[in-house]
Structure formats: structure tokens, C-alpha cells
């Protein structure tokens, strides 16, 4: 991974999207989100229109960060799975490859056991995609041809005109 940036290209984005779609269908979930640990939404699938996805991403990251802090206080590395049970909807949050957060929202059509099972499979697929993201980032770093490297002072100034 390039220090300072996390770069997601179309190819890997589409691969992530198809993993999320499969997870959504296999776990009978309402919606599935993938978020980076800093709270940026990477991809989502399902009934996303009914959720404020930006806020959800930021709070899920805050949630994982806070429980990670709790874990280290009791000598654990992290709590890699969180489950929140509501009256209608439930939320399963898990850490993927120590840097991404997978959020599954589901109702009574599914169960926590089924979600957990399907998430485990999705974790492996996402881990593989992350490896190819890292490789692409390494290549790009050597070539130095990303959008960020091409930014000029004038581009940055143009935001404030």
C-alpha cells in the first residue's frame, strides 16, 4: 500500500462489489457495507437508499476503534466481530484483514449464525482482493502516475475560486 494513500481502482472495486452482492444474497441481508478503518465508505450493496451511508461508515469505524481500545485495555489484540441486536434490524460488524470493516445489516429473514458463516467466506475473498490492491499500489508507486502525483498548484487553487 502506498504510504499516505489507499487507492481503489475500477477492477478491484468491481470485484469487491461482486463479493458484497454474493454476501448480501447468501446471508439474506438487507444491506452490506465495506468501510476502511478511517471511516470512508468503499462499497455497498442492497437497500442503501434508506441509509445515510457516509454517517454509517464513520460511526462503524468509530465503533471498531473504540472496541479495539477496550480490547487492548484487557490485553486482547482486538474484538474482530461486533454484533448489535435491535428490535427490527441487527448489525454484524467485522474486521477484514486488520484494515477494512465489513458491516451487514439484516432482519428476521436471516440469523446471526448464517451471517457469521457467510461473512467468513467473504473475508477470504476480500483478503485476496486486498492483496491485488496492494500489488497495484506498489506498481503505481514505482511508476508515479496516479491522479495525486499529477495534481498541480493550479488544480488545488481552482477549488477555491
Amino acid at each position, binding site marked *: 500500500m*502506498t*504510504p*499516505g*494513500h*489507499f*487507492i*481503489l*481502482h*475500477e477492477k478491484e*472495486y*468491481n470485484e469487491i462489489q461482486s463479493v458484497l452482492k454474493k454476501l448480501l444474497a447468501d446471508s439474506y441481508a438487507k444491506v452490506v457495507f465495506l468501510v*476502511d*478503518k*478511517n*471511516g*470512508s465508505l*468503499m462499497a455497498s450493496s442492497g437497500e442503501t437508499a434508506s441509509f*445515510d451511508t*457516509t*454517517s454509517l461508515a*464513520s*460511526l462503524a469505524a*468509530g465503533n471498531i*476503534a*473504540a472496541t*479495539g*481500545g477496550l480490547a487492548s485495555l484487557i490485553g486482547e489484540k482486538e474484538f474482530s466481530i461486533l454484533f448489535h441486536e435491535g428490535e427490527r434490524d441487527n448489525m454484524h460488524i467485522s474486521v477484514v484483514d486488520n484494515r477494512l470493516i465489513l458491516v451487514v445489516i439484516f432482519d428476521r429473514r436471516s440469523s446471526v449464525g448464517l451471517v457469521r458463516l457467510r461473512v467468513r467466506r467473504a473475508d477470504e475473498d476480500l483478503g485476496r482482493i486486498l492483496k491485488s490492491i496492494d500489488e497495484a499500489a506498489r506498481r503505481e508507486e514505482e511508476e508515479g502516475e*496516479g*491522479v*495525486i*502525483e*499529477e*495534481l498541480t*498548484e493550479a*488544480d*488545488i487553487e*481552482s*477549488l*477555491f475560486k
Partner: protein
Amino acid sequence: MSFINYSSREINCKIVYYGPGLCGKTTNLQYIFKRMNPESRGKMISLATETDRTLFFDFLPVSMGEIRGFKTRFHLYTVPGQVFYDASRRLILRGVDGVVFCADSQLTRMDANLESLDNLKINMREQGYDPDRIPLILQYNKRDINGVASVAELHALLNYRNVPEFEAVATTGVGVFETLKAIIKLVLTDLKKGGK
């Protein structure tokens, strides 16, 4: 750590407002929320106590337009300023791309400003950042009240890197957007150079 998504053509960056308790970090975000076009900003989330003190963080996503066909989005966070919330402050600094240090200009708060600035340096080092290199802007808030230190005094006391500094009255918006624009410029310039 910025997140660049080529599929949705977005650049996402994280900016953290840091400073002692009651210096006006949340007020900065509230003013930005109030004054920005609703199409350019999302909802503001405040995880606060019943007495409206920040418990974990405030969060406000803002969009600043496009650069080379990429939408630029900035996630603005505040930390809880009260000394005993240090564990939470450390967590919020993770993945930060730029910091606004919001100082309270009142003479009686100089010790609190210094303590918070030292705490920022310690926590940045703990998160693997170099406090001498991270994009940083200083804001001297509460310029409208009596008994404030001069800008020269605040500069001598707090501006250890001679970074851009702004006088502000966050309650009425003075200096709020100037501060935001300045940190955004620094963050984007730093990204271009290769970040952390």
C-alpha cells in the same frame, strides 16, 4: 490516510480539529454545517454527553468540488478536548491527513492550550506521524472576548512550526472558513508530495 476511489472518482481525506476543552472545535463544525450549501455537506454527527460536551467525536463530511474529474471529500472530525478523554483522542487521530489546532485565546487558558498541543504531539507520534511534518493550521479562537492574549503571544507560545495561523470567532464564523480552506490546501499539497 487519504482514500482514492477510481471507480466513483473520489478523493477522501480526514481532517481533525484538536485543542483544549471548550476552545470551540465543535462550534467550528457547527458553523460550517450551518453555512455550507446542504448539497455540499452531509449530516453532522455529535457523540456528546447530556451537557453537550464532546464524548467521542463530532463528524461532518463536506465536498469541495472537483479536481481533474475527481470529487474531493473531506471528513471533518473533532476530538473530545477534556484531558481525561485521551484514549478517544488517540483513536480519532488514526488515518488523519491534516490537523487544525484550535487554541482558546483567553489568557486563563494558555496552560490548557500548551498541554493540549503537547498531547497532540505525543498522540501523533504514537500513531506513527511526525508532528513536525503533518499538515497543520493554528486557529486562535474567541478573539471577541476580553482578556485575550495577543496574536504575537499566541504565536510565540504555540506556533512551533510557523504554520499558517488564523484569528477566529467561531460562534459568528469569523475565520472559520479561512481555517478550513487553509487546511484543505495543505492536505492536498501534502498528498501530492506523497503524504505521511
